[in-house]
């Protein structure tokens, strides 16, 4: 059974004067225990809004419909979400390494979530904090330092330790390495993969970076204009993409070992404060059919665990 199930999630941001931005549109996906899933898309595609909805951290201007089930409980209910947040589902975000309190030692800050979310004694929490720091590759003496005394990579490791403080089942990482150098990025991604393997931790990796997803995740959800374009095993998405957006996004991504030219996708994503007729990607699609501009595409199951929201998916057309 899935650990986390997102069903028909919709998020609207109120823009005032009756206008609204339909930021997430009918999004459904699921996350199994220990699975590493990438949530991929470009800026404005709704990936961050979707994850904020999962964590019940949306601002008051947002309205939500659908279901986010964690072990059968709906996290869209604020009270239920509060009981699971950090305890079962932890979040590490892009600038997280800069979110430490500058005047408190790293180790002391790690203890806090344990005291707040789990009733543990201070001594036990301190021992656990040292254990966690060691797990992410930070020595006990480095743990006694202040945030500014550690590099960005070390602080991001400490943030991971903090996310693990309450033994969550799911780690959500939103662009966790985007602000870091490639060498540090590789170290952090390797650490995240190792932690997921060793602790059986499910990972939801939210990123714009397809190669990172290719190397870290087994499955991915590709989002476009607030909706799911395609989801499935990463190897299939790369080798046999069923949605033109997936194919074109890979073709726009440079690769060291591929001499084919890198091609950009002409046009811009649609505005989400207007209703979208037909497929949201149709105006930029290189293989659009007549019906693509008039009717919303069906969600086609290509194979079990692999779906595509395209009229052409699975050789249907």
């Amino acid at each position, binding site marked *: 059974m899935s650990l986390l199930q997102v069903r028909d999630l919709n998020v609207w941001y109120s823009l005032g004067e009756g206008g609204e931005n339909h930021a997430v549109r009918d999004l459904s996906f699921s996350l199994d225990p220990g699975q590493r899933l990438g949530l991929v898309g470009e*800026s404005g595609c709704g990936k961050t809004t979707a994850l904020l909805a999962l964590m019940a951290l949306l601002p008051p201007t947002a309205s939500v419909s659908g279901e986010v089930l964690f072990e059968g409980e709906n996290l869209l209910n604020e009270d239920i979400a509060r009981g699971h947040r950090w305890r079962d589902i932890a979040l590490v975000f892009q600038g997280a390494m800069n979110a430490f309190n500058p005047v408190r030692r790293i180790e002391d800050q790690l203890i806090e979530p344990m005291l707040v979310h789990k009733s543990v004694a201070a001594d036990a929490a301190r021992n656990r904090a040292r254990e966690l720091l060691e797990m992410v590759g930070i020595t006990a003496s480095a743990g006694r330092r202040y945030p500014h005394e550690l590099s960005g*990579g070390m602080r991001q490791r400490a943030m991971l330790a903090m996310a693990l403080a309450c033994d969550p089942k799911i780690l959500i990482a939103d662009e966790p390495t985007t602000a870091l150098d*490639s*060498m540090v990025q590789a170290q952090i991604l390797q650490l995240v993969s190792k932690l997921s393997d060793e602790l059986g931790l499910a990972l939801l990796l939210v990123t714009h*970076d397809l190669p990172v997803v290719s190397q870290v995740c087994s499955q991915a959800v590709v989002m476009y204009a607030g909706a799911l374009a395609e989801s499935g095993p990463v190897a299939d998405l790369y080798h046999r993409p069923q949605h033109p957006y997936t194919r074109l996004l890979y073709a726009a991504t440079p690769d060291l070992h591929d001499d084919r030219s890198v091609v950009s996708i002409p046009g811009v994503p649609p505005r989400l404060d207007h209703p979208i007729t037909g497929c949201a990607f149709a105006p930029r699609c290189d293989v659009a059919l007549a019906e693509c501009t008039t009717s919303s595409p069906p969600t086609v199951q290509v194979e079990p665990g692999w779906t595509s929201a395209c009229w052409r998916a699975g050789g249907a057309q």
Partner: protein
Amino acid sequence: MNQPVLEVTDLVTVFEPRGSLLRKAGGPVRAVDGVSLRLARGEMLALVGESGCGKTSTVQTIMRMVSATSGSVVLDGEDITAASHRRMRPLRRRLQIVYQDPYEALDPRFRVRQTLEEPLLIHTKMSRTQRQDAVIAALETVGLTPAETFLERFPHELSGGQRQRVAIAAALILEPDVLIADEPVSMLDVSVRAGILDLLDRLRRERGLAILMITHDLATAARFADRIAVMYLGRIVEEGAAAEVVGQPRHPYTQALLSVVPERDPLRTRAPLLLVGEPPNAANVPPGCRFHPRCPMAEEQCVSVDPALRPLSAHHSAACVLVN
């Protein structure tokens, strides 16, 4: 090789700490420590390295935003290393820069037309109609067509890719010889990056523009640049034809950097060569080879010998005692 349009020789830039707190923190920072570069017309050279390696300081020194401590910068035969501000003024139009963040680089209160006209007002005596023609031509060159529909827009009415095109148009309007592109696509969405890189590629091929591109992205450098120079702690440690540097990297640092570039194909996996430690800071450069504390292949001699950049073939050089 034809006469380089930009030639940088043994460039050194040292930042002296001021104030007691900084003095306590360390000695002078050798941000650029003997960098030499040659850039020919129509060529694109990618300067690659991690943050803090001195890429930006190198560019700032070339642009005369900071003064060189020693070495020289020669622009089309003229030494500009110590040129006065008065002398630099006409030269600046020949050496332009495009920054990473098109959201910050454009004045939010300026319409596109004003942004593009500004350099013409400063550097030329063009009439109003001449300026208008130049602005429209620049917009067409960068692919913002029909140009008339963009003239009166403000930056907030443009997408990120369009803003970067405006920034490039502003840099090109004075018809420079050399364009420095500092991480020109790293703030942009993947789907529009290739368009901007193709534009730069076309500009160098069609107009003979020489481009020095600063990037941390080796995959982009491999695809678009003619040559790649890899920088570590103020020095160039490997330099050569892009295909050779990527295909047969010789310096252990380049090998490590290449090994951590994630593959697009999920079925292709490589064991990344993870370096231990963090890049040391330029106020405290290790003795011998500056890379030796993190080098997986370091030998005894590396602790004492500071290797110079040596040619390995006609188009490839590296600064490592272990390669020949």
